[in-house]
Every structure is written in structure tokens, then in C-alpha cells.
């Protein structure tokens, strides 16, 4: 014991992690070197998608309350983290989402009415259209991280210059699969970017109780991959970090872990979670003051690229789209037990055929 106190400290040390920021909460550029290369149209498109998603989220919450949606995990507060990161991908790139990541899926080409069907518990919700490169929302936290390594290895083996972007949260970064996925990606040098949306709570458990690690970004170091922490309320910083990571991965320069520091304004899900039980109104207010939409709006307004009129127009457009898509979901014919049985295997085996017949025969006896 005495020796330990006086001897040289051989323990491994970590350099302090510096968070990447580009825009201040007031919408001013604070990091000229890191301003992403985006055209005015692209900047406007990121804003349009964030505003659209906020309005869609609000509408989805009320649809859930009306019983027209099933499980729903609100996204407000995380728009920069979700939308600016997806915006840095190409259509052929692959998204491996967690259950909250519906916006990335929809902006990657997954039809919104299918997201609604998924929420309503209809199998067609999971039937991703051909040419849309996404996996279904993952329920088992972390499973998408190990699968992302497999999808990325597929690209590598096919010599396809595409990248996988996998999403999880601060809670997800505690899972064994998270470490296994990062480690596989590093060991095989796979084209994958892991994005941990650190929204401060895993349902009710705060980030501070999730890990003794000072940042989640530093978890990359143990896997021997690149890690970066980014202001998740800053769309430009998120885009910059993701774009650089995606292009590195595309060029065979290996995986990156990105921690986006963000906040969910709403509850964990609409299934009975009450955030007032585990966080204060003051805390929530502080995060709402640095709303990703406010800062992007201010930035774009200062450049003459955005107006209130335009914002209202996008919100109207979102409402109309949601109304039309929920109707489409509601009008989709109900699935059947027979259809379900037939979807288990490519060719339904005799035992299941028999069970199908048993089910049909018993149907009449009520």
C-alpha cells in the first residue's frame, strides 16, 4: 500500500474530451474552422426537416392519446441529433435504428404510414420497401450495434462504398452488445458510425448513474476506434461530425463513435412515463432554452434563409402529411393469423400448416 502512494503512477490517463460546437445557442458561428460545407438549399432543407419533424412529433403525441397510435417515443429536443446526422448519409447507406429513431428512417425513405402501422402493431409496418436501406426499429437495446457491424461487413465484402449508421442512447451505451459491436467494428475495420444520442435519461435513470465514464465518446478509445463528443442541440456540429465520420468510414479509414449531447423534451414514451418524477422543471427549462430549432432558425434568419412565414408553411405541410399518412395507415386492411403463420418461414412447414388448419377449424366456436 505504501509503495502505491509514493511510486510513479502508471495508470492509463485520458486527455480531457472537448465537445465539438459550431453554433452558439444564439445562432452565431463560434467555430469557423468547423463550419460544414453546406449550400444554402441544404441548410434550409435541414431546418425544414427539423420543423416538420417537430410538428409531426406533436401530432403523433396527440394521435397516441386519441388511441390512433400504439407505442410512441417522442423525439422533440433531439431533432438536430437525429436529422442532421441522417442528412450526412447517402441513400445507399444503411441506418440501424433504436425505437426512437423513426425520423431518421422516414427521412431515409421509409414511408411514414408504415411507421404508424408499426406503432399500431401491424406487420406491414416492418415491411421496409425495396431500395430503402434501413433495419426495423430495434427494441432490444444494443442489438442494433452488433448487427450494424454485420451490415457494415457486408458492404466491405461486396466492395460497396457504403456506410452503416447505427443509433442508440446513453442507456444503450451500457449494454454488452454496445461494446461488442464497437470492438468488432474496430477489429475488422468496418465502415460504420455509431451515434449515441445522449439525451440524459434512460427512461428515468440519469446519465450520471449510467456510467462512471466522464463522457460516452471516450468509450471509443477502449475499442481502438475514433470517438467524438458533439453538441447535440447544434445541427451544424452534428452534421459536421457525422459527415466527417461517414466519409472516413467510406474511405476505409474505420469506424467512429459520436456522442451527441442532447435532451428529450417529452417523456420516454407515451405509455405512462412521467418525467416530473425524475427531473426538475428548471432543468427542462434550461434545455428548452437551447432548443436546436431556435438556434438554427436564428442562424438562418441572420443569413436571410428563413422566415416565420416559411416555418408556418412547413408546419402546415407536416400536419397535412401526418393526417394523410395516418388515414392511410388506418385504411390498411387488418392482418390475419393465417398470414402471420405464413410469414414465419420461406416455406411454411407441415406442423405450422396443421396449426393453421386447427386455428381455422376452431374459429367458428365462440
Amino acid at each position, binding site marked *: 500500500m505504501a509503495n502505491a502512494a509514493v511510486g510513479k503512477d502508471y495508470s492509463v490517463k485520458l486527455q480531457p474530451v472537448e465537445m465539438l460546437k459550431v453554433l452558439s445557442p444564439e445562432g452565431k458561428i463560434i467555430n469557423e474552422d468547423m463550419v460544414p460545407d453546406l449550400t444554402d438549399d441544404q441548410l434550409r432543407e435541414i431546418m425544414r426537416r427539423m420543423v416538420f419533424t417537430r410538428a409531426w412529433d406533436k401530432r403523433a403525441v396527440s394521435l397516441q392519446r386519441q388511441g390512433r397510435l400504439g407505442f410512441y417515443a417522442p423525439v422533440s429536443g433531439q431533432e438536430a441529433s437525429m436529422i442532421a446526422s441522417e442528412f450526412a448519409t447517402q441513400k445507399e447507406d444503411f441506418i440501424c435504428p433504436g425505437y426512437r429513431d423513426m425520423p431518421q428512417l422516414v427521412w431515409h425513405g421509409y414511408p411514414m404510414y408504415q411507421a404508424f402501422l408499426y406503432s399500431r402493431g401491424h406487420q406491414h409496418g416492418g*415491411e*421496409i420497401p425495396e431500395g430503402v436501406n434501413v433495419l426495423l426499429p430495434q427494441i432490444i437495446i444494443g442489438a442494433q450495434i*452488433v448487427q450494424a457491424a*454485420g*451490415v457494415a461487413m457486408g458492404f466491405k465484402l461486396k466492395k460497396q462504398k457504403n456506410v452503416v449508421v447505427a443509433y442508440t442512447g446513453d442507456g444503450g451505451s451500457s449494454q454488452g*452488445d454496445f461494446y461488442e459491436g464497437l470492438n468488432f467494428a474496430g477489429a475488422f475495420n468496418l465502415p460504420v458510425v455509431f451515434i449515441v444520442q445522449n439525451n440524459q435519461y434512460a427512461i428515468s435513470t440519469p446519465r450520471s448513474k449510467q456510467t462512471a465514464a466522464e463522457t460516452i465518446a471516450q468509450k471509443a478509445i477502449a475499442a481502438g476506434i475514433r470517438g467524438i463528443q458533439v453538441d447535440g442541440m447544434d445541427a451544424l456540429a452534428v452534421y459536421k461530425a457525422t459527415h466527417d465520420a461517414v466519409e472516413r468510414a467510406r474511405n476505409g479509414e474505420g469506424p467512429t463513435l459520436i456522442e451527441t449531447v442532447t435532451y428529450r423534451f417529452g417523456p420516454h414514451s407515451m405509455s405512462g412515463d412521467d418525467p416530473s418524477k425524475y427531473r426538475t422543471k428548471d432543468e427542462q427549462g434550461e434545455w428548452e432554452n437551447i432548443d436546436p430549432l431556435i438556434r438554427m432558425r436564428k442562424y438562418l434568419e441572420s443569413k436571410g434563409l428563413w422566415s416565420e412565414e416559411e416555418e408556418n408553411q412547413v408546419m402546415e405541410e407536416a400536419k397535412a402529411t401526418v393526417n394523410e399518412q395516418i388515414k392511410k395507415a388506418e385504411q390498411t386492411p387488418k392482418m390475419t393469423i393465417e398470414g402471420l403463420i405464413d*410469414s414465419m418461414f420461406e416455406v411454411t412447414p*407441415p406442423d405450422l400448416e396443421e396449426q393453421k388448419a386447427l386455428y381455422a377449424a376452431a374459429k367458428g366456436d365462440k
Partner: protein
Amino acid sequence: MAQMTMIQAITDALRTELRRDPTVLVFGEDVGHVGGVFRATEGLQKEFGEERVFDTPLAESGIGGLAVGLGVQGFRPVAEIQFIGFIFEVMDSIVAQAARMRYRSGGRYNSPIVFRTPYGAGVKSPELHSDPLEGLLAQTPGIKVVVPSNPYDAKGLLISAIRDNDPVFFVEHLKLYRSIKGEVPEGEYTIPLGKANVVKEGKDVTIITYGAMVHTSLEAAKLIEQERGVSVEVIDLRTIKPLDMETVIASVQKTNRAIVVQEAQRSAGVAAEVIAQINEKAILHLEAPVLRCAPPDTVIAFPQIEDEWVPNAARIVHTLKQVLDF
């Protein structure tokens, strides 16, 4: 025709499919350079390269996730789980991910994956290497479970499993790897999944079994035939999910008496399912209840007494007599 051990037949099946189909990939812990702890993949990395036959980091869930992701990308992964007890680490990938992929995605994605793993008592392996866990997987919707009992079947069944577009859990008995040799044809042939094999015809009583117990059951059949002058039919299920009840029922209708022999614990397993279905489909053909010969519902015995724990020929004979004398 070449004489092969079961392990050689498995290697031969893998080689045949790696040659035939460029999407087949073989990976797991120590399967690449060294060819697996039982040498099931010996020489394959040399022939097919490190991109198609490779070592993974030591993490079973990572191996499972890799397989699921590669399946989505159109590959046919053959993932080795080094010993069956380690499947608990990869249960999510097998049961919650691969087995549900087609169903969840309404057929857009599938998991054409074979999870190969050795199991089985009789070689005195350490804890969690030999547990008969096949019943856990057989209860999982969306996955097929195959247990070969000899080299010829192992090759034909493994080729079918690799070509199947849905996940297959392929369980290889440790005791059978090198203890028996059999004739194995060169090149391609398949044995359909879900088809049992009547390995011995008889008319007085049926033994329904699979895996290493096929051999123990044949030994028991011989003993009781000598002692009693009865004739015993032995059915090797080969696939325990889905079950080939057609073959089982045809046999029971002929012999009117049956027992099920399994290496797995007594309750809620393959034997229970076989008996339930005989009850549903052939109860009026029975002259006696269908009995189980199986170990007790304990954790698999430690190596010192594992031979006593697993059914032996004498215990099978005892069970047969109960059915014959009913």
C-alpha cells in the same frame, strides 16, 4: 465412397458449400487459422481466404449480431458457437433477432444463418460445454433445429441447413465427432430438414430418439430383441423442429407401443412434444402409454457421473419393458 468421421463430414459439407456459393461465410472463435477447437473448419481458411473463413473476437453476441447483419446483406453465414453453453450469450441474436427477422419485416429481410454448436455428454467436458439445450431452441418460433446422429446425415443435413433461407440451429454431439465412421459420398447431396429416418424397422415397439441416443437406443433394441424375441423399430428424428410426425405416427400405428429417448432433461422437451402429438393423432392405436426415458430435471451431471445421468441401454430396456408389459 470415403469413410469419414462426423467431424470430417461436417468439414466436407462446409467445403462443398463454400465452393458452390460465394455468399457462404464461416466464422467464429478460433475457426479460421487453427480450424476450430475440434478442427471442424480445418483447411477452409487456406482454401477460401480470410474474407470468407475467419476468426472473430471472443464475444458470442457479437458473432450472432454479425451473422444477422450479414444475413440482411444477402450472405449465408455459418456461425460457430464454440460450445453449446455459450449460446446464452448469443440467445438474443438467435431467438429474438434471427428467428424473427422474416416475421418482423413481413418477408423483406430473412436470416439464412446456420448456428453450429457442439454439445453432448460422454466426453467429460467442463461445465456448460455439453448441456442438452436443444429443447430451448425447439420452443423458439422461427428457427429449425437439427441434430445429426452420423457422418452421412451430418453432411447432408448441414448442406440443407446452409441452403435454407431461414435460421437453423445445428447441434453436433461431441461424442459422435470421432467415435463412429461411416460412408460419406463425395460432393453435393442433401437430406431434407424435417424428415425423420427409420434406422431400424420393427413391429412390436417404437423408439423415437435423436442424436447420440440413436446409437444407445439401437444397442437397447438389440438387447431386448435377444432377451424377449420382440422386434423394435428405431426412429432417428434428425430434425427436432419441425418434427416429422408423419413418420412417427405411421410407426406407432404399426407397433402400437412407443417410448421416446432423449439426452435432455425429462420435462417440457422434445419427448413431451412427441408424446403430446401421438396423443393427438394416434391415441386409439396405443396399447400402452408412451413413456419417456430421459435424465432427471437437474443441471447436467458433473463429468464424474455424467454417464449415469444420461440414458444407457439398460435404462432404455427397462422403459421398453414397462411399455411391452403394460
